[in-house]
């Protein structure tokens, strides 16, 4: 164990352990959950820009009937990569960024349970993302949709869907490792007094998400392995002529795919469950209801997968059952919305950008939730499935819900992470551009779908009368793009300011606001003892008999900087090369499966070197 501020002694053993915790190269060896969180976030935002460009290509192609910007095959690649990027390379890692950075801070821990495994997760996620994107230069990107329905995906002659299978297996390993790591962290590393029901709602949602990941990723792993075998080794899992069944893929995919939807949205639910109370100056209304409804969504979410398959011919019994479970899952979701409303009710609402994003999340998610309920009405879904109505629905959930929520989180925690506030005026412009843009883009898609516009189409004829709303949608997409641009400028500009955000700029409730911004490498000078939910708030304010707030004299003592702690004697694990090395071997194995076996062999050797070096690494004491 190295102590952070004292240069480590020369390490014993074959390889010296890196010691730098600052500077450019420290980012490659870091195992600090905060730096890894920033890496996750920065990478996810890069992919967000790429996925956004893909979205704009789609919208320009569909701006007018008979669009000529993209050919049919290019369009298949672009819409597939747009979805894969936004789901696996943006929303999941951006959520992982928040969980990584904040969960240890919110439960009063110094790091995650397995810091090197955490670094490994990040590097493997990056490897998987780069592997997927290398397909553009190696014969064609995935072109069978993110849902990859067999046998189209298994018989397509271009290599795209092989990249899909291997790329998602890689990011799947990364997510699995990350999920186990964070779940163990939450369960085992809470500060004294931080009982499960004193954890912030965000940490609860994080725990639910990690457990869902741990249980749903194995299913897609099996499916992807079978797809890879069908494509590469001539098996017949999904080939009906040889006794396989294409429907098998759909069950496996959606058994993962629907839990995945909640994996994407629950982090945003957690984030706004933090933001709304802070800017209402009231506790989260019915904290336990919110937590339990999150857990309920976690469970029921595993029992609704076939609502993606109402037109597949599962028969009336299955369609009835899954229609009913789909309706049931709307109940705990509704509970959350009412609780958020009640949190704001009679509060002292301050409309910061973070608060606007949180309210925007609730309001736009409601639209997606309501259209979701119409899918539970199975016969009307017979008309709407595979049309733009569905595209409208899940974009209200994933953009109106997940992305707005995550942006709220960015504005809310940015000062904690970087010590600098984002500009509020620019933030509000960003918010209104995104919210109006998203409603212009995705609102009309409900109408288009009902008018008979199918999904995943690269064109539409003028005769169907779909032109006007497609034009509106394209204009809206560019508004969103400008909104994102404003964010990028705002983010970059924030680094020109001094680190003057202070420890607690929002009058926060949870203990991450009790330490300096940005937090020192050891997080807490002393591990706090937690006495209540919203512990930091109760250090600052007491309630009188009528429930009114009374500031505590000298409460909070937020400015930990006064103590000038130098970190002496706080033991933290040292940085390491090996997570990066181990992760770098995996894409080589992937290329080996596609091209030459010797590459897979080299990759396997690299992975083994990484793992053994990792195991045998000296502890640099």
């Amino acid at each position, binding site marked *: 164990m190295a102590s952070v501020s004292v240069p480590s002694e020369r390490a014993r053993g074959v390889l010296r352990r890196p010691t730098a915790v600052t500077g450019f190269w420290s980012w490659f060896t870091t195992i600090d959950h905060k730096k890894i969180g920033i890496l996750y976030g920065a990478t996810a935002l890069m992919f967000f820009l790429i996925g956004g460009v893909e979205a704009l290509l789609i919208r320009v192609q569909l701006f007018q009937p008979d669009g000529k910007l993209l050919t049919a095959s290019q369009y*298949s690649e672009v819409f597939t990569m747009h979805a894969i990027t936004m789901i696996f390379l943006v929303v999941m890692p951006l959520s992982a960024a928040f969980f990584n950075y904040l969960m240890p801070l919110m439960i009063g821990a110094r790091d995650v349970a397995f810091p090197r495994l955490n670094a490994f997760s990040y590097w493997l996620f990056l490897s998987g993302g780069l592997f997927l994107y290398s397909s553009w230069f190696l014969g064609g990107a995935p072109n069978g949709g993110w849902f990859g329905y067999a046998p189209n995906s298994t018989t397509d002659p271009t290599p795209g869907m092989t990249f899909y299978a291997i790329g998602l297996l890689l990011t799947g390993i990364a997510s699995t490792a990350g999920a186990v790591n964070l779940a163990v962290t939450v369960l085992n590393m809470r500060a004294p007094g931080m009982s499960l029901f004193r954890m912030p709602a965000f940490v609860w949602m994080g725990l639910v998400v990690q457990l869902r990941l741990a249980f749903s990723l194995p299913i897609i792993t099996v499916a992807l392995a079978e797809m890879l075998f069908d494509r590469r080794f001539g098996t017949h899992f999904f080939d009906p002529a040889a006794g396989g069944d*294409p429907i098998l893929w759909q069950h496996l995919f959606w058994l993962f795919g629907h839990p995945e939807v909640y994996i994407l949205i629950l982090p945003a639910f957690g984030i706004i469950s933090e933001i709304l109370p802070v800017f209402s100056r009231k506790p989260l209304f019915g904290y336990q209801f919110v937590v339990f409804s999150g857990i309920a969504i976690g469970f029921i979410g595993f029992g609704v997968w076939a609502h993606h398959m109402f037109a597949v011919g599962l028969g009336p019994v299955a369609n009835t059952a899954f229609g009913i479970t789909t309706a049931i899952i709307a109940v705990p979701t509704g509970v959350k919305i009412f609780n958020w409303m009640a949190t704001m009710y009679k509060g002292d609402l301050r*409309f910061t950008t973070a608060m606007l994003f949180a309210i925007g999340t609730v309001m736009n998610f409601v639209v997606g939730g*309501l259209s979701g309920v119409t899918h539970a009405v199975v016969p009307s879904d017979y008309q709407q499935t*595979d049309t733009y109505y569905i595209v409208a629905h899940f974009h209200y959930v994933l953009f109106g819900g997940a992305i707005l929520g995550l942006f709220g989180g960015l504005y809310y925690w940015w000062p904690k992470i970087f010590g600098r506030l984002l500009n509020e005026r620019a933030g509000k412009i960003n918010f209104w551009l995104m919210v*109006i843009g998203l409603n212009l883009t995705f609102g009309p898609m409900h109408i288009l779908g009902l008018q008979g516009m199918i999904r995943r189409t690269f064109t539409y004829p003028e005769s169907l009368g*779909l032109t006007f709303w497609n034009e509106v949608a394209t204009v809206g997409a560019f508004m969103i793009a400008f909104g994102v641009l404003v964010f990028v400028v705002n983010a970059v500009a924030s680094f020109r300011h001094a680190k003057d955000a202070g420890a607690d700029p929002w009058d926060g409730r949870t203990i991450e606001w009790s330490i300096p911004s940005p937090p020192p490498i050891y997080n807490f000078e002393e591990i706090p003892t937690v006495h209540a939910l919203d512990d930091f708030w109760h250090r600052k304010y007491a309630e009188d008999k009528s429930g009114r707030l009374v500031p505590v004299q000298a409460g909070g003592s937020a400015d930990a900087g006064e103590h000038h702690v130098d970190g002496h004697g706080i033991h933290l694990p040292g940085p390491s090369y090996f997570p990066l090395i181990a992760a770098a071997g995996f894409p080589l194995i992937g290329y080996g499966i596609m091209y030459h076996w010797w590459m897979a062999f080299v990759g396997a050797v690299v992975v083994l070197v990484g793992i053994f070096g990792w195991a045998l690494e000296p502890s640099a004491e």
Partner: protein
Amino acid sequence: MRKRVLWVLGLAALALALAACAPNASQDTLNPQGPYARELKNLFVPVFWVAVGVFVVVEGGILLIALKYRHRKGQDRMPAQTHGNTRLEVGWTILPAVVLAVVAVPTVATIWDLASKPPANAINVTVTGRQWWWKYEYTDPEMKTAAGGQIISANQLVIPTGRTIYLTVTADAGAGSRSDAGVPGFAVIHSYWVPEICDGKQDAVPGHENHIKCQADHPGTYTGNCAEFCGLNHGIMKLEVTALSPHDFEAWVANEKLDAATPEPGSLAATGLDTFMSVGCIACHAVRGVEGAEADAAPNLTHFASRDCMVGCLLDNQNPDDIARWLHDPAAVKEGVKMPNYHLSDDQIKALVAYLMSLK
């Protein structure tokens, strides 16, 4: 602030108004032209209004709360710290559950109603999805042709008004797929959808059979499209259903039962038939009554000229220019198409068009 809120309200109202009155498009789910499609709309519309009610209450509530309790400058209010209210929360758990249970009743009833057997006088047609066109086979005994087989057609389905059409939807299975046309990826999942006259869409899954019921009230043409992503030309895998009066339909059936017309010797169409037999068309296409032209990999052309559309209803069968353009270079019309380019001369194309146009 108030201005912004008004903006949001206005937009929401606009979206609502627009959703409620979508203009007529020719494959509009809200413009049903037969009893089955109407049954679906009649289920959707009330649910939509329930959703609108919830929307107004929830979004209106949020906006009211946001307006009323916003922080006012210079007014340092310490709100009461309410932590929850179990009775209230149980209430708003039960309330949506009740609303959903009410919606579930007609939902389940309609699921089972649609799954019931078709009426005895229904016309049975098997639809097979191929990359990227539709094959129809009329399977009833009275649809037998003079030569003994069933009536087979492509892309455009012809039906009588006022009668249930019971479609069996499927796709070719498996290895056939890989070798049938000598091209990989032949057998994939499609989805058959004619929004205005059928009870929704059903997937055409290789090795599986699904069923759709359709019925049109009035003569006319109803369009649809493949709804499940089926490869690069998914977006232009269109189709048409033409509803004829029962009398016209009888005449159509009588004509379909006949073998293909034989072109007059010496005519351009006769030259076209020779070209048809010699350049390679018969590797995939059948023309009933012409010996040697019996393949099933591509659309049956026996009554080609009686149809309105071809190439997944992308082109007009009645337009010689469209046919010539297609024969000249299929891949230029539709990327990735299975039909090869035989590099036909202009004369060959002219003759082939004449022959095809003679196949009434």
